[in-house]
């Protein structure tokens, strides 16, 4: 895998493979991979630069049953907050993450064009695997 994530084949929905040196990076990369399905993150960053007043920064705290459920809850939280604030989040500081708890600060902004809508983050074949280099997982989004 080059970079933070890669899109993999799925007949109907969108699937990405994500990796990270630790859970915090895995979660941040998953969120970035999701943002890249919604829009061009470069455009959001540029908008920040051009119109800092429209930038959105929020802190997130979540608890969940296990690491996979936490990952789904995290990505869903970003989709929900994005829908509420009318923005896409592209920058993620994952301050603390254990399999049951997450704290993060996220930043984003409004976009000119959404490429598509993500209805939900699924548990389909979701398993966070410990590899020699850190963690890896696949996430399937219902679109």
């Amino acid at each position, binding site marked *: 895998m080059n970079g933070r994530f890669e*899109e993999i*084949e*799925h*007949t*109907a*929905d*969108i699937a990405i493979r994500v990796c990270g040196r630790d859970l915090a990076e895995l979660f941040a990369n998953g969120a970035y991979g999701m943002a890249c399905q919604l829009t061009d993150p470069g455009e959001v960053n540029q908008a920040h630069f051009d119109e800092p007043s429209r930038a959105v920064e929020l802190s997130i705290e979540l608890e*969940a*049953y*296990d690491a*996979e*459920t936490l990952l*789904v*809850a995290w990505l*869903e939280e970003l989709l*929900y907050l994005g*829908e509420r604030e*009318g923005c896409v989040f592209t920058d993620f500081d994952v301050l603390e993450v254990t399999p049951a708890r997450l704290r993060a600060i996220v930043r984003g902004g409004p976009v000119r*064009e*959404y*490429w*598509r*809508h993500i*209805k*939900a*983050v*699924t*548990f*389909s*074949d*979701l398993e966070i695997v410990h590899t020699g280099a850190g963690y890896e997982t696949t996430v*399937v989004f*219902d*679109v």
Partner: protein
Amino acid sequence: MVQKSDFRRVDKYIWELPKSFRDDMRVPARLFGDAELFDAAFRDRTVEQLINTATLPGLVKYAMAMPDFHQGYGFPIGGVAAMRLDTGVISPGGVGYDINCGVRLLGTYLEQEEIAPYLRDLTAALYRACPSGVGGKGRVRVSGRELDALVTQGAKWALKRGLAQPGDLVHTEEGGCLPGADPSKVSARAKERGRPQVGSLGAGNHFIEIDVVDEIYDPQAAEVFGLWKGQVAVQIHCGSRGFGHQVCSDYVKRLQPVVEKYGIQLPDRELVCAPVDSPEGRDYYGAMACAVNYAFVNRQVLVMGVREAFEQVLAGKVKDFGVFQVYGVTHNIAKFEEHEVGGRRMKLCVHRKGATRAFPPGHPGVPEDYRDVGQPVLVPGSMGTASYVLVGAHKAMELTFGSTCHGAGRVMSRRKARKRVRGDELRRELEEQGIIIRAGSMKGLAEEAPAAYKDVSRVVEVVHGVGMARKVARLRPLAVIKG
């Protein structure tokens, strides 16, 4: 790894995998399709997902995939699974996130030639009257209290609010209201997301299409449904928006530890479920029914948007711009229905995920005025290709718990479609064929290219050939609005 040779061809269009194939299968798995469609099942994970579905507790007869099957999450799309109420489970992943995604077919009293001069204006008016796109706000805003009434009463709420005509309800599956809805089982977040979106199309594969009826196969059924060759018709395809997505997400998460509590082993966490007869199962059903009713109202409000657009553009220009509802079907749902199993009538929990109910003539679930011919089944094709109106037939009760296909079914990933097709070129090609296209996103349009889908006619031939449903009419698109 499952091979084609592991399946037995039971009939020309039925392929069966015995439950001995994998230790955890509780029932055999059945795929419906001709030889080419059967081959396609092995190009993605359809078969694996169908085998996984066959492991769920309390399954009756088979785990099945209708001929428009393709890989989904948890269940394959096109999946049908019926569970016993005493030992079976209900699965939010087996219904899907877009609870009661479905289709309405509206008939008009207009010939294609009559609207030809106004088609572009009509498309623009529809685009304005039926909000679409990501995060699109709906035609109607409701308070928290009104939302609870809306999701409990479904289309009856819309009728009271003047957002429906009585005939619309009669010609909707379940009369537009699934009983058993319990708003106290729906999260505050689902309600918050649902309030502003009533009467909105959304994005993705959702659409509104102006069609012309270009072929009649069954004149008697067509007449009963009010369809005739050359007639202008409208299709609406959408679901329960953020409300339904949130209900499903909430319960897929909430039920993760519950599976362990009831000692259920799952090969895929998306198949998460709870016994039908358990507090958790009942809670999910109560919440799901709310989302089902939300979707009934959502499409109903869009029907009123269609009527408004037709009046706006055509009043004074044509004799009758009226729009009547032929029928409304649902695709993603779990329902309690009575079926015959081994010569005995049994109440079952039937999951349909990307599948349509197809009740035959004489069934009490079919509206009275259609009962002699059967329930209309609406099968939209991919953008720019044909759609079909079918009618439910007896074999569906015998073979598939009264179910059939719901569309063409994808064969190509969105990624491949984007690489092969450019949205703006596709729009130009379709416009050259005389089809007007309005779309929120060119990338989204490319992903929905006809080449990414199976040939809907092939899928319909299988359904017709098996005898699950019979062909009544074919529709050809004149204008398409994509979210």
